[in-house]
């Protein structure tokens, strides 16, 4: 696709900072005619002339890593799909996008839906799937309509369904459907998403078996993020070599960074992986209002470990660099908090979210998120003591790793790392004296006349 190499700013390959792969700046690209005029569906045509294994191989070599949070190699994931099976295979595209701080997939639904559709065709061909479900969160009524309109256009033009065979002169065809969620963060977890598509409560499943072995209705299934799939057509068009050279070699390509909170120009910026976090905040997002100092940054959506504002220098935005910096890339949702932010309030709000969204299957997560919230609220009321901080970390440690899915970890990390990294800040908010965590109900019921202090003596 030629348009990928040029941008309205006159940037060419080599001038990588201007390269836009997923959201090129072309007017009305959401219209199928415009998409076609810019080389749309040529990548699919090219893909169908090669073998599925070739496609998987190219995507593997390109180094494309999942954009949904785990940053797992997309090509490797596809290669787990069994080659010989009598069962139907499925592709699920994860557009649940419910991670606080993450708002990138909706841009793809709105501004470049046909590239997503083309990516789906290529992916289905590569893994041998005949059916694809695009799972979109229920709150995105508008974007569901936009995606459904684009899909209807693609069908009308013969770029999906049975007519594909004629259009592309191939034996392959696949059906694409939109599945509307109904308000459950947990459905962004792949096995929960599959249960939701099956019309069940969105409980995560125990793994193994992994989706490639036992997915939708027990059949081999691949689940990929919207942004991951939208990256596939350019890789096929321009070659894996081209893609592998963009950004950081270990996590190549561009990433849609959604930046929010205390910045002058919040929004989604498509930038090469490895862009400096400070560059993103100060150059692209216009810095902090009032030129205030930054207290804390969460670099990848609310479940990722927060970073201290005084330690942002030199941190690059890609999976490996952020891991080294003690956090993770997640969904690329960057939340910036200035020096006047009440971090206890922020942490309590984050914890309230996980408490609300825990599906309730595993005890550590169901109970632990509630306990953490209670303790944080106690600190907010000014009734916390220094042992509450250790108690919070202890509860977080007992959730982490002890649940079926990663929501437990997602709830534990912010608490654990926020307190560890901002210990000084939190200690100022609690009393140094160790107190009993709850009012002693037994004594109050018995109307004991001894105040607690006297009992201690």
């Amino acid at each position: 696709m030629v348009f990928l190499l040029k941008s309205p700013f006159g940037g060419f390959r080599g001038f990588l900072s201007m390269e836009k792969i997923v959201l090129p700046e072309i007017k009305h690209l959401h219209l199928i005619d415009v998409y076609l005029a810019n080389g749309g569906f040529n990548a699919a045509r090219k893909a169908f002339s090669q073998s599925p294994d070739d496609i998987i191989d190219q995507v593997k070599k390109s180094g494309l890593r999942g954009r949904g949070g785990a940053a797992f190699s997309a090509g490797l994931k596809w290669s787990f799909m069994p080659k010989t099976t009598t069962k139907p295979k499925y592709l699920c595209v994860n557009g649940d996008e419910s991670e606080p701080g993450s708002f990138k997939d909706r841009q793809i639904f709105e501004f470049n839906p046909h590239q997503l559709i083309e990516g789906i065709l290529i992916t289905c061909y590569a893994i041998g799937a005949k059916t694809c479900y695009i799972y979109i969160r229920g709150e995105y009524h508008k974007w569901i309509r936009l995606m459904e309109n684009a899909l209807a256009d693609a069908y009308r033009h013969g770029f999906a369904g049975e007519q594909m065979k004629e259009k592309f002169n191939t034996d392959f065809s696949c059906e694409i459907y939109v599945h509307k969620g109904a308000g459950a963060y947990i459905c962004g977890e792949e096995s929960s998403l599959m249960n939701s598509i099956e019309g069940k409560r969105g409980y995560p499943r125990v793994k193994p078996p992994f989706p490639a072995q036992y997915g939708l209705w027990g059949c081999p299934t691949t689940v990929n993020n919207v942004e991951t799939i939208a990256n596939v057509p350019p890789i096929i068009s321009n070659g894996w070599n081209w893609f592998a050279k963009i950004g950081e070699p270990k996590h190549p390509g561009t990433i849609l960074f959604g930046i929010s909170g205390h910045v002058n120009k919040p929004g989604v910026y498509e930038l090469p992986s490895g862009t400096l976090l400070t560059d993103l905040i100060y150059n692209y997002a216009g810095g902090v209002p009032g030129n205030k100092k930054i207290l804390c940054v969460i670099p990848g959506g609310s479940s990722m470990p927060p970073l201290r504002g005084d330690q942002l220098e030199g941190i690059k935005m890609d999976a490996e660099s952020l891991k080294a910096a003690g956090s993770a890339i997640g969904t690329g949702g960057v939340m910036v908090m200035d020096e006047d932010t009440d971090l206890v309030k922020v942490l309590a709000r984050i914890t309230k979210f996980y408490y609300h969204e825990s599906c309730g299957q595993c005890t550590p997560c169901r109970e632990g998120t509630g306990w953490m919230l209670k303790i944080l609220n106690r600190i907010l009321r000014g009734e916390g003591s220094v042992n509450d901080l250790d108690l919070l970390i202890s509860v977080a440690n007992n959730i982490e790793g002890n649940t079926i899915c990663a929501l437990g970890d997602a709830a534990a990390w912010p608490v654990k790392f926020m307190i560890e990294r901002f210990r000084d800040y939190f200690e100022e908010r609690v009393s140094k004296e160790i107190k009993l965590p709850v009012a002693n109900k037994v004594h109050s019921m018995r109307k004991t006349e001894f105040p607690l202090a006297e009992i201690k003596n």
Partner: protein
Amino acid sequence: MDFKFTRENLDKINDAIKRYPDKQAAVMHALWIAQAQNGWISNEVMQEIAKVLEINPEDVLGVVTFYTMYHQEPVGKYHLQVCTNVSCMLRGAYDIYETVKKSLGIENMQVTADKKFSLEEVECMGSCGSAPMIAVNEDYYENLTVEKIEEILKSLTLTLSKEEGV
């Protein structure tokens, strides 16, 4: 109160069924369609869906109670959803929330006496880059200020009174 799908909606459900290898998978579609027709999901609605999809009513109930967007009680004509999650909170979401509560005189998950408005404090709606935000039924209102939310509430009330005037 009995509930029956309209002919048109029944066709829509049958269309949805064709997308999946089994009928249960169409339950979320059916619930959305039912909510659009009935305004909320009553026991009768769940029983009817179970009948149409040939599944147990308990399984429909299980789905309804899991997902927050299916209303198990009637909501107002305008259902206001205020996001107070971190990105919105940092940009003043609680001021918006308090303003809405005060001007409507209701608390979270309540409906006004005239059944025109209802309020729900919601989790992240994916509008972090245009925070703070509220959703009124299906539409997002973004980049809000207290003045803007007051204006929105006024214009919604005006629309209602115009409708009643007709």
